[in-house]
C-alpha cells in the first residue's frame, strides 16, 4: 500500500497548507492530529493534519446532488468533481543535502512548492523527528493511529518546569506515572512528589479496573514513601520509609499568606501574621494561640495595632491548622533533612497525604517543605558554583491542584511561583498537574517548557494552555477532539513538534515488566561503562 495522500494545492506559512486528496484516499481515514510528510522540491516538510473538509468543483453539485446510489456515478465523481481536502500545518523541515540531513529537522520557515506530493508519515519519519528509544529518550506512547514508539528526551524535559493538564478522569495520573518512571530511569533528576491522593507511591486506582502498582512497588530501591498519615498508610499496606510531622515552629508567615483563601482570612489578619512573627519569633503560632485568656491581651494587641476582630479571625484560621493531626508543637525529626538525604542518594521521594486530602493540609505542607528544600538547593548550588564541586541532583517537584499554588493572587508569594519563574538556575523544576489551567498565572504558564494536555473542553482552559504556541488555532482543533481518555497532546521545549499521542499501557503485568526491564538495561549498561572506566 502506498501512503500517498494527495498534492498540495495552496499554501501559506501563516495559514498552513491545503492538500487535495487523491481519488482512492477516503476522507474518512483522515484524522485530525495525524502526521504527514510533504515532499517539496528541495526539502521535506513534516506537518500535522489540522482540518479535514469536502470540496466540489461545481456548486451545482451541492444544490442538486447526483444519484450516488448508482455505484457508477459515485465511482466517477469521487476524486474528480467531489474530493476531500485536508489542511496541514507544517512544523518541521529537513533539507535534501547532506549537511542539512545531519542538522536534523529544523523549524519551518518556508512552504512546499505547488503540487508537492503529500504522504502519510512512516515509522521512519517519526523516528527521524522524535528519535529512538535510547538512554535519554523514553517511550511515552504512540502517535495517534500509529504503531511507532513516540520517544521523549527526558534529559531535555527535566531542564524546564513542565505541566500536565486535562479534565478530571482523562488520564492525567496515568500519564504522570509514566513520566515519573521515565524521569526515574532516563535522567539524572530525582523526583519529589506531593501525592495528594496517595496514587503514586503505592497502589493507585484505575477507573473500573483493578488497582495499579505504584512507583515503590516497581522500583523498590529507588523510591521512598514518606507519609503524613502513618495509620492510613499502614492500613493500606504501604511500607513507608518515614513519617512526616510538622512543628508549629516550622510554619512561616508566607505559608499562612498562601492559605488566606482556604482559611478565610481577612487582609488585616494576614498583615497581623507578620507582626506576630516579629514579636514572638519562631514559636509565634503557639504564642498567638496562647494569648487568649491572658490578662494583657488587649494591651498586647493594641501595642501591635491589631484589631480585636482581626485577631479572632486569624486565631480561627490558626486553630484550623492546629487541628491537623500531623502538626505538633515541635517536630521530633526534621522531615526536610530526611527528604534531602534521600534525594542526595538519588532516591525519589513520594509524600503521601493519607486521609488529609483537604486543600489546607496540602497547600501548607507542600509549600512549606518545598520552600525549605529549595532554600537548601539554592545555597548548595551557589556553593557548588563558587567552589567548583558537584551540584546537587536536579530535582523535579510534582504538585497536584497546581492552581491553588500558582493562581495570579498567590503565585508571586509561593515558592512554586518562584521555582517556575527562576527555572533551572538552582537545579529545581516543577511538574505541575492541574485540571483548571486557566486558574494558573499566565506568567507561570508562559515559563513552562513542555506541556502535555489531555482533553480540555473549557474554552478558557484551552486558551491558557495553548497561549503563545505557534499554530494555536490548529492545535486547538486537535486538542478539542482528543478522546476523553488516554489521548494527549504534547508540545513545547522537549519535543521538536507538537504531537497527539496515546500514552503507553500502564497496569498490566507486561507493562510493568517493560517499564522495569528498560530501566535495568540502562543501569547494567551504565555499570559496565563504569567498570570500563575504572580500568582505563
Amino acid at each position: 500500500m502506498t501512503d500517498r495522500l494527495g498534492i498540495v494545492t495552496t499554501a501559506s506559512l501563516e495559514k498552513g497548507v491545503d492538500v487535495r486528496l487523491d481519488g482512492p484516499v477516503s476522507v474518512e481515514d483522515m484524522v485530525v492530529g495525524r502526521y504527514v510528510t510533504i515532499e517539496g522540491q528541495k526539502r521535506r516538510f513534516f506537518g500535522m493534519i489540522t482540518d479535514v473538509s469536502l470540496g466540489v468543483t461545481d456548486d451545482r453539485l451541492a444544490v442538486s446532488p447526483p444519484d450516488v446510489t448508482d455505484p457508477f456515478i459515485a465511482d466517477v465523481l469521487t476524486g474528480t468533481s467531489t474530493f476531500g481536502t485536508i489542511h496541514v500545518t507544517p512544523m518541521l523541515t529537513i533539507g535534501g543535502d547532506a549537511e542539512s540531513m545531519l542538522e536534523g529537522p529544523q523549524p519551518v520557515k518556508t512552504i512546499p512548492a505547488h503540487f508537492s506530493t503529500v504522504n502519510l508519515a512512516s515509522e521512519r519519519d517519526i523516528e527521524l523527528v522524535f528519535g529512538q528509544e535510547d538512554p535519554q529518550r523514553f517511550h511515552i506512547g504512540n502517535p495517534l493511529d500509529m504503531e511507532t514508539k513516540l520517544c521523549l528526551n527526558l534529559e531535555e524535559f527535566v531542564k524546564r518546569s513542565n505541566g500536565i493538564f486535562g479534565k478530571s478522569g482523562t488520564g492525567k495520573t496515568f500519564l504522570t506515572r509514566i513520566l515519573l518512571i521515565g524521569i526515574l530511569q532516563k535522567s539524572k533528576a530525582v523526583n519529589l512528589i506531593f501525592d495528594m491522593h496517595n496514587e503514586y507511591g503505592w497502589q493507585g486506582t484505575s477507573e473500573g479496573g483493578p488497582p495499579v502498582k505504584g512507583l515503590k512497588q516497581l522500583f523498590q530501591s529507588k523510591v521512598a514513601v514518606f507519609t503524613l498519615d502513618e495509620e492510613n498508610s499502614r492500613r493500606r499496606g504501604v511500607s513507608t520509609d518515614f513519617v512526616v510531622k510538622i512543628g508549629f515552629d516550622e510554619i512561616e508567615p508566607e505559608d499562612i499568606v498562601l492559605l488566606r483563601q482556604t482559611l478565610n482570612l481577612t487582609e488585616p489578619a494576614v498583615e497581623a501574621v507578620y507582626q506576630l512573627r516579629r514579636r514572638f519569633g519562631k514559636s509565634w503560632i503557639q504564642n498567638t494561640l496562647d494569648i487568649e485568656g491572658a490578662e494583657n491581651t488587649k494591651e498586647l494587641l493594641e501595642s501591635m495595632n491589631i484589631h480585636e476582630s482581626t485577631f479572632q479571625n486569624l486565631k480561627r484560621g490558626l486553630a484550623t491548622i492546629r487541628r491537623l493531626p500531623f502538626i505538633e508543637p515541635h517536630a521530633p525529626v526534621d522531615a526536610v533533612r530526611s527528604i534531602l538525604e534521600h534525594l542526595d542518594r538519588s532516591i525519589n521521594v513520594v509524600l503521601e497525604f493519607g486521609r488529609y486530602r483537604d486543600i489546607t493540609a496540602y497547600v501548607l505542607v507542600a509549600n512549606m517543605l518545598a520552600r525549605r528544600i529549595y532554600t537548601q538547593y539554592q545555597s548548595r548550588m551557589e556553593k557548588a558554583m563558587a567552589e567548583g564541586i558537584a551540584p546537587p541532583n536536579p530535582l523535579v517537584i510534582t504538585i497536584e491542584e497546581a492552581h491553588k499554588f500558582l493562581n495570579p493572587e498567590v503565585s508571586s508569594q509561593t515558592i512554586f511561583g518562584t521555582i517556575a519563574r527562576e527555572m533551572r538556575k538552582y537545579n529545581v523544576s516543577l511538574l505541575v498537574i492541574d485540571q483548571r489551567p486557566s486558574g494558573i498565572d499566565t506568567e507561570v504558564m508562559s515559563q513552562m517548557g513542555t506541556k502535555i494536555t489531555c482533553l480540555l473542553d473549557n474554552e478558557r482552559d484551552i486558551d491558557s494552555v495553548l497561549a503563545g504556541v505557534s499554530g494555536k488555532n490548529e492545535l486547538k482543533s486537535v486538542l478539542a477532539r482528543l478522546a476523553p481518555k488516554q489521548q494527549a497532546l504534547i508540545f513545547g521545549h522537549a519535543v521538536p513538534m507538537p504531537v497527539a499521542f496515546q500514552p503507553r499501557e500502564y497496569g498490566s503485568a507486561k507493562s510493568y515488566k517493560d517499564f522495569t526491564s528498560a530501566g535495568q538495561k540502562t543501569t547494567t549498561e551504565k555499570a559496565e561503562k563504569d567498570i570500563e572506566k575504572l580500568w582505563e
Partner: protein
Amino acid sequence: MPDQPNRIAEVIEASTAQFIAQCYELYELPPLGSLVKTGDIYGIVCHAETASMEPGRKPIARGKEEDSEEAVYRSSPQLSKLLRSDFTAAAVGYKEEEKFYQYLPPHPARIHGFVYLCQPDEVKEFSQSFGFLNILVNAALPIPTEELIAAALRQMSRAHEDSRAFLVAAGKELANLLSSDFIRLKNILGRLL
C-alpha cells in the same frame, strides 16, 4: 468493389474539423458514435441522414397498397438508386508513424477517400487515451454533444474487456473537463450505462 468488408463509404465533403461521407449502400450507415477512418484521419460519426439524391426532388409516399415496408422497395427498385445515406464524422485524431495523436488532423480528409469502420482492436487501441473527449466537448455539432459523447463511449466500451472500468476512467476524464458544468456531466453520465 474488392473484398474489403469494412469499407463502407466515400468522402464527399471535407473540412478540418469534420468530413461527410456517402455510404455505398443505402441505409448501411455506421452507428452514431462509432469510430471511422479515412486515410490517416480518424473520426467519430456524429450525424447521419438519408435523403433524395437531388435536393429539389422529394420522396413521395408509396406504400398505401403494399403489405410491408420491404414490399415498397421491391416494387420500386429505382428507389435504392435515387436515395442516398450520408454521415458526418467529427475528426478526432490521426495516425502518424504508427502512433495515435488525438488532435485535429493537420490536413482535412481527401474527397473520394475511402472510409472504413474501425474494428474492435483498433477502437481499443485508439481509446487508450481520452484526448478525443476534449475535442468532442468543444465541437460545434448538429446534435447535442452530450448525446454524441455518451454514444461514442458506449460504442468504445464494447471493445474493452472491462467495459465498466473503461467507462469509469472516461467518466473521470469528463468530470475534469466539465468540472465547472456539473449538469452537462450528469447528462452524459446518465447515458453511459
